[in-house]
């Protein structure tokens, strides 16, 4: 471990509209996977890298973040908060941290999961000078991200979601190392509308001032609703379950079947003959009633899954109620987000916070039910249902 422990600035002010309805009541960094918010996984990586001071840039629904992390005692780290009251881009977010950092610092996104090595690699190079460091990683679909062209370890440019063909699979991993000089550089960046940190980096790259750092560890991004399931599964499969939440307060019947790749929060009730399997995470104060089948599903706190319900490949958000014998069949489907059609994604369905699915109702594959929706017993729910809607029979 190095002497200097340093500061990490984590950007957690964004809303995450592509994850609606999950982000209607919480910021994207607070969407839980493997029973912990995305941001908690980021904080843990930062702590594991030996950094002992974190500045969280918060904005949208910030109470959720402040309430969960407090002053950082539970993670043995000092957590401070700065507010980005309007979301004007990542560069603007970094600028909000200026009053509270006085030396070189690491910057991370609060919703991208990386290993501690990505953080410590940047931290260890921080004292080299004022040249910004950008962590670069290889992914299968580079065009969804900021594609980085490199000349040796010099960054040539970062091309956000390029339209045309790309000749590299290397992208900006979203872990940066900056000196306080970055603040003037951000202010000097010409921007119309959002002030993205990558715009500043491109300006600096033109003067050969940006260094790329290769990283080939874990890099997980939750861009779309179905990524909640894949990232949840990835985390569950490489976590040591023995150190998960304490088992106190659980009520689990004798005849319940719980597979190894299921994580249960401390305070969970599971009725007789229920079956839990396939990379499933069950949050605090959740009830799974008798004979329910839950598979490859993320269940947020306080939700209730009724007797005999079948819930596969689904995200069930906070305090949602799935009625008796309701069915989310699961499997591969086509999901439309905005104007984009996503084919062949595994998503049985999403049930928003406080929504209620009546007994015997069915969600067709890829259905997305908004928060506070009431779906009557026996209905078939298809496509996207806006928040607060009532789905009636007939």
């Amino acid at each position, binding site marked *: 471990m190095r002497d200097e422990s340093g500061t990490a600035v984590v950007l957690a002010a964004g809303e995450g509209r592509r994850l609606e309805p999950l982000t209607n009541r919480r910021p994207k960094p607070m969407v839980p996977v493997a029973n912990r918010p995305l941001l908690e996984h980021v904080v843990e990586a930062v702590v594991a890298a030996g950094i002992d001071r974190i500045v969280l840039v918060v904005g949208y629904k910030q109470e959720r973040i402040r309430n969960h992390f407090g002053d950082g005692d539970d993670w*043995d780290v000092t957590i401070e908060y700065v507010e980005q009251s309007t979301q004007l881009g990542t560069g603007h977010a970094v600028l909000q941290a200026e009053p509270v950092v006085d030396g070189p610092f690491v910057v991370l996104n609060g919703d991208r999961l990386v290993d501690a090595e990505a953080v410590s690699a940047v931290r260890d190079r921080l004292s080299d000078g004022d040249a910004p460091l950008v962590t670069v990683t290889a992914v299968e679909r580079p065009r969804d991200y900021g594609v980085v062209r490199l000349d040796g370890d010099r960054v040539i440019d970062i091309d956000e979601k390029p339209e045309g063909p790309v000749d590299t699979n290397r992208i900006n991993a979203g872990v940066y190392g900056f000196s306080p000089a970055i603040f003037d550089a951000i202010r000097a960046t010409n921007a119309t509308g959002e002030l993205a940190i990558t715009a500043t980096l491109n300006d600096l790259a033109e003067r050969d001032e940006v260094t790329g750092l290769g990283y080939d560890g874990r890099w997980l991004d939750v861009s779309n609703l179905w990524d909640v399931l894949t990232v949840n599964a990835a985390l569950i499969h490489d976590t040591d379950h023995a150190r998960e939440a304490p088992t106190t307060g659980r009520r689990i019947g004798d005849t319940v079947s719980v597979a190894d790749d299921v994580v249960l929060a401390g305070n969970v009730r599971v009725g007789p003959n229920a079956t839990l399997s396939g990379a499933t995470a069950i949050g605090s104060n959740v009830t799974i009633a008798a004979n329910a089948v839950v598979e490859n599903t993320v269940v947020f706190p306080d939700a*209730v899954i009724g007797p005999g319900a079948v819930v596969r490949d689904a995200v069930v958000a906070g*305090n949602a109620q799935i009625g008796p014998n309701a069915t989310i069949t699961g499997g591969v489907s086509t999901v439309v987000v905005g104007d984009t059609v996503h084919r062949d994604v595994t998503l049985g369905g999403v049930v928003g916070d406080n929504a209620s699915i009546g007994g015997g109702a069915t969600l067709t594959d890829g259905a997305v039910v908004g928060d506070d929706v009431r779906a009557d017993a026996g209905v078939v729910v298809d496509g996207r249902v806006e928040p607060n809607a009532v789905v009636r029979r007939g």
Partner: protein
Amino acid sequence: MCGIIGYIGELHAADGGGETTDEETPGSVGEIVHRGLKNLEYRGYDSAGVALVGPESGLTLAKRSGEVDALSVPDVPDATLGVGHTRWSTHGPPTDANAHPHTDCVGDVAVVHNGIVENYEALRAELADHEFTSDTDTEVIPHLIEEELAADSGGEEGGEGADLLAAVRRVEGRLEGSYGICAVREGDDRIVVARRGSPLVLGRGEDASFVASDVTAFLEHTRDVTYLEDGDVAALSPDGVEVYADGDAVDRETETVTWEADAAEKGGYEHYMRKEIHEQPTALRQTLAGRLDVDAGDVDLDVSFPPGFLADLEEIRIVACGTSYYAGRYAAQLFEDLAGVRATVEIASEYEFGAGRTPDRTLVVAVTQSGETADTLGAIRRANAAGARTFAVTNTLGSTVTREVDGTAFIRAGPEIGVAATKTFASQVATLAMLGVAIGRDRGALAAADARSVLEDLQGLPGAVQQVLDEEQRVREAAREFQDSEAFFFVGRSLGVPVALEGALKLKEISYDHAEGFAAGELKHGPLALVTPETPVIAVLTDGARADETMNNVTEAQTRGAPALGCVSAGDEYDTLDASFDVPDVGVVEPLVANVYLQLFAYHVANEKGRPIDKPRNLAKSVTVE
């Protein structure tokens, strides 16, 4: 949540203590350590202690369970260094013996510790010839130090060659687990500290050095700090600070803290009260954890009564003060409904056993967050003297009330710092509701199906409260609109009455505005004379609160020009309200959920007025005088 503070400085010891109350004057070692403990109070604690060392006086120890304020720090004029500790017990009782500092057999070495010594049982077995006086894992540390010192000095106590720093370094290698340790020794002018897993930070003043589990403990004295790393051992002496890692002296960087103490303590919230309002879903999940057996329609509160006692019960009398009294009012109605037994509530300071009652058929239930409320303890003593069976509902393990009653149910809400009770009210009512179900089932007064319905409502409580918290922005707008009103009247019926009373109490406590709660039907029997266009009426219009009848009374006030705000069951609508807040469908606990709106309203009215919300004038968190 334990807290550590240590201080060493020659300069201030020469002042010899004295009448230093001025914030600018550092004062004696004892006073500085005591103030450090006060600064750590926000973490919650139930015991505290200090050890002071001086060249003439040797080692002086003081520790006890209870308030930091109640700890009398001994006057040791020649003390040059001291360490202090606050302890919040979650497993095992807060007793004087279990409070830190802990000492070795002869009382030469004193240690405060934050964290867990995982191999303490094995170590304790190795220390078979040492005398232990507490149940803590910590106590092995001073005894291990004693052993290492003895080894150095060839078996002689305190002999030449025995060095505290060397001893702590060797002990550190024998401990498993997580810890931050501070050790002091009679005849030694140093504080020796070690860190692994639990935070320790050093403060570097001009003529003094500090060590603490948290910078806030000494931030008023110095902002120059050094964070220790895992495995570091450091010695604080009059000459300064030396840090060692793996036996070698190392330089650890000194940083300057730029932030303000308050922000760190409250996790970025402006006030504990707002933090604690937002903690309610988590607190309620803890309250309910493992206690609801919905399928069987029963609860497991881990309490027991003598056979036949509940069946023959004639009356449950609840005694409490302030917010706990309103929780009791809520519970009394639930007890009558669920347990089929007469239930009455008495303000604790007014309580007498009273005539016409049979002691062995009466259960007296004390509701107290701290478990130390003097008025409530007095009531319990009167009940015990009369021969009644007594019971406590409290947040505090090992508190006085738990030792004086026949049985206890803990509300498990976690530490509450804001003087205005918020999350503990919610957890108290939830716990009392579970107690009502338990008694009702035991007495055969409550059918399993009816019990199930109540338990499902309870289970839905955390999610419902979260829904209300998500509406905070709208409550803040209402608070801004109505903050300058002359007075505020809160009304409800049935379970809405205690919530109206609690809503009014919250507002008056922290905003200093005139606020009153009434049973809605009483409005026309007097208080209506106070109603003007400048006095908003805030109503509980939910299930369990006879909403339609209450709305009739609200209309009477509206006719006199009063603005009206309401907390309304989701799906119902009262079009004439000036502001309406939805309460999710959770049956008999809907008024409890509505109360969260009233908490937020009180908070935002007070915040708009810039009141000192966490420490309202004239009030204390735990009232330990009658």
